[in-house]
């Protein structure tokens, strides 16, 4: 028996909005190879709405961006990127489930060790997830075009490092702020004062 999955209207609309945000930012940053906000947005989606929502955002984004892409489209690579991207959403959901702390952002908390500790944790998660994503997609791309996987990994190193370092910075600097902002607007109804 399959487990019964229930999705609320709020989750569906949130998934749609985050997917639109991912697609829009991807096309905006298309000139910057492997530097994208998408991974952060997918992770944040998973963190705020659960793994299912995060995975959905990742897959839906790639279904659009991976098909309508000026650099070309291949089904096998599209499947690999969908799987790789959904990892961000899955881990985002698991991070929230297992209590990865995101302190509220304010002029007071930003001076606290707790805030920066949490930011570093987010940065490290972003880095490791990106490493796994790049490793996986480079191997699949190599096999697809018929070059040895090790060669594909080594030739992809400059792009992989750019992806990993940029994601570390995005996760480190923006994840806490973004999670707090979305929580405030979407779940608590905006600023009270």
């Amino acid at each position: 028996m399959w487990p019964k999955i229930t999705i609320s209207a709020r989750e569906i609309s949130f998934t749609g909005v985050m997917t639109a945000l991912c697609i829009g930012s991807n096309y905006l940053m298309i000139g910057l190879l492997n530097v994208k906000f998408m991974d952060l947005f997918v992770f944040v989606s998973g963190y705020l709405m659960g793994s299912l929502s995060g995975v959905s955002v990742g897959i839906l984004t790639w279904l659009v961006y991976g098909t309508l892409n000026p650099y070309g489209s291949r089904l096998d690579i599209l499947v690999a990127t969908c799987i790789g991207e959904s990892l961000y959403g899955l881990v985002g959901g698991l991070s929230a489930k297992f209590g990865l702390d995101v302190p509220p952002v304010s002029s007071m908390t930003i001076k606290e060790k707790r805030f920066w500790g949490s930011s570093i944790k987010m940065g490290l998660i972003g880095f490791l997830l990106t490493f796994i994503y790049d490793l996986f997609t480079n191997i699949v791309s190599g096999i697809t075009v018929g070059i040895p996987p090790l060669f594909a990994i080594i030739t992809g190193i400059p792009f992989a490092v750019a992806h990993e370092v940029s994601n570390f910075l995005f996760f480190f600097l923006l994840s806490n702020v973004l999670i707090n902002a979305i929580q405030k607007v979407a779940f608590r109804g905006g600023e009270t004062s």
Partner: protein
Amino acid sequence: MTEKRGWLWISIGLICLLIVSSSFGAYYYMECLKYKQLYNESLTELQKYSKYMLVNILIDFGNGTKEWHNNTLVARGADVLNATRIVAEVNYIRGQYGAFVTHIRGVGGDPNTYWLWYVWNSTSARWDFGPIACDAYVLHEGEVVAWIYSKF
């Protein structure tokens, strides 16, 4: 428990640094191998050319048409005739003093008009008449020779 978690995150941070440094190491190692291979290929290519030299050849057809064949690659030890045959079709006869060129690219055979060759004298800055037969004069690196269709 909190201390343990702290060390866990420090370990994760170190793993990330390890990934970045290993990536750079692997990448630059491969780059090093690539450039070593390119260097060796260039050396092999250059060794091929050690048996050759560059000379400049002028062909003056006597009707105002002058053709320069600068940096013509010829084998070391090549004579003027060999070098000229690389850049143009040459007809010649062999006499008791050596080869005598009759036609270059079909031009020749007019009454009292002959193909004569000259070598550029860089010291006096003028053309010196070829001292011996064109198939007996061995060229040197960078030398400039001319064939002039001259009427007497």
